[in-house]
C-alpha cells in the first residue's frame, strides 16, 4: 500500500492551514508527522482520514482518491484521534463490538477478531469497564484496538503518546514496531520526538502549513543539510583545551569548534566520513593531545526538527 499526499491545500476562509504539501509513505514503514502546534498536522490527518475535504489537492491510497471514493478508502484506514470519547454508559467490549459491526464484521469472525485485537493491545482486562472509567493510557490502548479492529493496511495516529507514562509509551512503541513488521503503513503525529526517533523510518516536518522536509531520516537530513557534528572528549589538562581548539580550527573542513564543558569539545565539520577520518588521524598523530574518545554524533529527529523549524505558529 502506497499512501500519497499530493499538493494538498486547505483554506479556512482567508486563512491557509495547509499550503501545497506533498509526501508519500508505504507499507512496512512508520512515518513521523511532526511540527509545532498549529502547523496543519491535524488538518492534513483529517483529510487523509476522509473527514474533511481539501481546497485543492488529493490523497491517494494505492491510487484510490479520498475525494472520489471515500467509501472505498475507509476500510483500508485505521484512524486514531488524540482523545477517546468519554461515555459512562458503554463498556469497552461494547464499544469495540460496535466498531467491528460498523466495519461489517459478522458472527464468529467478529468475535474472533475482537478477541485477537484485545489480546494484542492488552485490553482484555478492561472489557467490562466503561470508557469514562479508563485512565489515559488505557484509553489509548482501547483507541488503538478500535483502529485495528478491521485490520486496516494504513494506520493514522494523531498524538498517540500524549499523556502516557514511560511504560505505556514503551508498550505503544513495541506494538507499533510489530504492526509495521506485519506490513502496515503507519503515520504518527507526535510532539514527543524522542519517542518517534526509535521507531520511525521516515518523517514529514511541517510548519505554518508548509513542508520543510519529507522522506526517510537520511533523505530529510540531506534536504535540510545540517553540518556533521563531532564530539571529542579530551583528558582535562589546564590550558590544553585551548591548544586543542586552536589546532582544530586550523583544519579547512572545520567550520566551528567550541568547548562544551571542561572535558568536551564540539566540532562542526563541513563534510562527511572522509573529513571525520582525517580529523581523527590528525588528533591521534599529535602525541601531546590526550584524546580518550572520538564520537561522531548522529543527527536525531529532535535536532533535525530544531534545525528546520523556527517555532512559528500560524
Amino acid at each position, binding site marked *: 500500500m502506497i499512501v500519497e499526499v499530493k499538493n494538498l491545500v486547505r483554506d479556512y476562509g482567508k486563512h491557509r492551514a495547509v499550503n501545497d504539501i506533498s509526501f508519500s509513505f508505504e507499507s512496512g514503514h512508520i512515518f513521523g508527522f511532526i511540527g509545532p502546534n498549529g502547523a496543519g498536522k491535524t488538518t492534513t490527518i483529517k483529510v487523509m482520514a476522509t473527514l474533511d475535504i481539501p481546497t485543492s489537492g488529493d490523497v491517494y491510497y494505492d491510487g484510490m482518491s479520498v475525494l472520489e471514493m471515500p467509501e472505498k478508502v475507509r476500510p483500508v484506514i485505521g484512524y486514531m484521534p488524540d482523545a477517546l470519547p468519554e461515555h459512562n454508559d458503554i463498556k469497552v467490549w461494547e464499544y469495540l463490538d460496535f466498531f467491528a459491526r*460498523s466495519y461489517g464484521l459478522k458472527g464468529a469472525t467478529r468475535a474472533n477478531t475482537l478477541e485477537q485485537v484485545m489480546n494484542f493491545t492488552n485490553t482484555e482486562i478492561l472489557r467490562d469497564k466503561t470508557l469514562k472509567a479508563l485512565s489515559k493510557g488505557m484509553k489509548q490502548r482501547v483507541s488503538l484496538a478500535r483502529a485495528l479492529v478491521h485490520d486496516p493496511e494504513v494506520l493514522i495516529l494523531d498524538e498517540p503518546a500524549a499523556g502516557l507514562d514511560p511504560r505505556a509509551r514503551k508498550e505503544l512503541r513495541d506494538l507499533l514496531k510489530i504492526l509495521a513488521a506485519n506490513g502496515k503503513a503507519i503515520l504518527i503525529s507526535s510532539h514527543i520526538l524522542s519517542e518517534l526517533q526509535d521507531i520511525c523510518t521516515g518523517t514529514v516536518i511541517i510548519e505554518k502549513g508548509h513542508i520543510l522536509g519529507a522522506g526517510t531520516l537520511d533523505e530529510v537530513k540531506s534536504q535540510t543539510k545540517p553540518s556533521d557534528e563531532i564530539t571529542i572528549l579530551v583528558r582535562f589538562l589546564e590550558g590544553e583545551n585551548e591548544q586543542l581548539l586552536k589546532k582544530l580550527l586550523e583544519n579547512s573542513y572545520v567550520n566551528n569548534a567550541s568547548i562544551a564543558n571542561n572535558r568536551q569539545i564540539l566540532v562542526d565539520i563541513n563534510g562527511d566520513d572522509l573529513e571525520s577520518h582525517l580529523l581523527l588521524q590528525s588528533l591521534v598523530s599529535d602525541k601531546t593531545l590526550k584524546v580518550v574518545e572520538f564520537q561522531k554524533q548522529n543527527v536525531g529527529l529532535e535536532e533535525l526538527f530544531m534545525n528546520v523549524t523556527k517555532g512559528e505558529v500560524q
Partner: protein
Amino acid sequence: MVSALKAKYNTVKNIIDKIDDFLNPIVVKEIRQSINSSGVMVLTLLILILEVSAFLLSFGYGDTEFGTGSVFYAIILAIFVFGYTIGISGVVATRITKEYANNDSTDLIYTTTISSYRIISGKLFSAMVLVFYLLSLCLPFFAISYFLKGIALNTIINITFFAFFVAVPYILLVILVSVSPMHKAIKVIVMLGAIAVVAIFTIWLISYIERAITFSWESLFCVIYLATVFSGLFYFLTVGLLSHLTANRTFGLKVFYSLFFIVSYVIVFAGYMFSKMFALFVKPIDIYHVAMIILMLIVLFNSFERTEQTKRVLLANPKNIILRFFHYIFSIGMANNTLFLILCFTGINSLLLCMFKIYPKVQITSDDVYSYKFITTIFFYLFAYQLAALILKRNCNKYFSKASVFSYFAFLNLFFMLGSMVIAFILKNILKIKAFALIDYIFIFSPLILWQRTNIDIAFVVSMTLCFIGLCFNLKYFFKCFKEGMKYYREGAGNGKKSK
C-alpha cells in the same frame, strides 16, 4: 436424543446469530447504552408513578358525563405522548448533542464503512424501541381504562395507533435538530415549537374521545400521509447533513420528493376516477399545499448548499447525455437544485391544471383560488430571496468571505420582515398591524402584502416578477454550472477519470 437437541440448539443459535448480524450497529449500540444508563430507569419509574397517580385521581371523575374510563384514558394518553415528546426525545437529543459536541466521537463513526442512511435509521429505530417500551408501560393502563367504561375499544386502538405513528416524524425532527449545526438556543426554540404541535395534535385526539367519534378512513389516511411525508423529509434532510462533503447529499431528498409527488397524484387521480365520495374528502388543492410546503423546505435546505458541484459528483456522470441531464437535476449544487425546483413547480402546477381539465366535476371555490395564490406567493418570495442571496454571495464574497448563502438569505428575510412591521406601524391600520403578531405568514415577506386580502393578486404578481428578475441575474452562473455538469462523464464504473 442429545445429538438431536444439539442440532436444534445449533440451528436456533445460527438463526439468532444471523439476526444479530443483520441488526443495525447503531441500534445495538444505542440500546446497550440505554440499558447501561440510569436515565431510562428514572424515566420508567417516573412514568409508572404518574400512571398509578392518574389511576387513583381519575376516580374523582366517576360521576361526570365523560365517565372514569375516558378521563383516565385521556390522562394516560397525555402521559404517553409527553413521555416521548419530552422524556424519550430528551434522552435521544441529549445523547446525540453530546456525541456531536465531541468531534472525535462523531468523526470515528464516519471513518467506518457505515452509511449516513444506516446511522439515521439506527438512531430512529433505537428511539422507536424506547417509544414502544413506553407504550408497553402504558398498555395495561389503556386496558384498565376500557374496563372502567366510558370509552369504546376501537377509539382506544385508533387513538393509540395515531399517537404512536406521530412519534416517527417527531423523533426524526429531534434527530435532525440535534445533528444540525444550529445554535443551542435556536435548537431549543425549534423543539418547543415541535412539542407545541404535538400537544395540539394530542388535544385534537382527546377532543375525539369527548365526542366519542370513531375515526374514518379519511382521517387515518391523512395522518399516515402527513406523517410519511414529514418523516421522509426529516430523514433525508438529516442524511444529507451527515453525508460526506463530496457526496451527492441531496440525492435521497430529491428522489423522495419526486416519488412522494408522483404517488400523491396517482392516489388523487385514482380516487377521483374510482370513488364518487373521494372528491368530497380530498381536494387537489390539499395535495398542492403539502407539495408546496415541502418545496419551500427544499428552498430553505438549498440555502445551505454548495455553490459548485463537487468533482466526485461530476465524475459520477453517466455517459448517456439524457441520463446525464437527469443526473444533473438530482445532483448536489445550487444551480442543480434551482433547476429541480423549477421543474417540480412546473410539474405540480401542470398536473393540478390537468386534474381540473380532466375532472370538471371538481369544484373550484374562491377560497381555493385564494389559498393557491397565498401559498404560491410565499414560495415565490422565498425563492426570490434565495436567488437574491446567491447574487449577493457571488458579488460580496470579497467583502464578507465568511458569509454563506444562508446568511444572506436569512438577512433578506429578516430585513423584509422588519420592513413590513415598520410600514404597518407607520400606516397604523388594524389589518396591517397584524404583522406584529405574525399571524399571517405572508405578511412577513413584503410590505406589498400588507394590503387587504383582495390585493393578494398584486403580491402574487410582484413575487413572481421578483423571482423572474432573480433568475435572469443568475442565468449566466446557472448556465456555467449546467455546462460543467454536462461536460464530464465516467469512462468506467468508479475509475475516477474524466472524458476530456
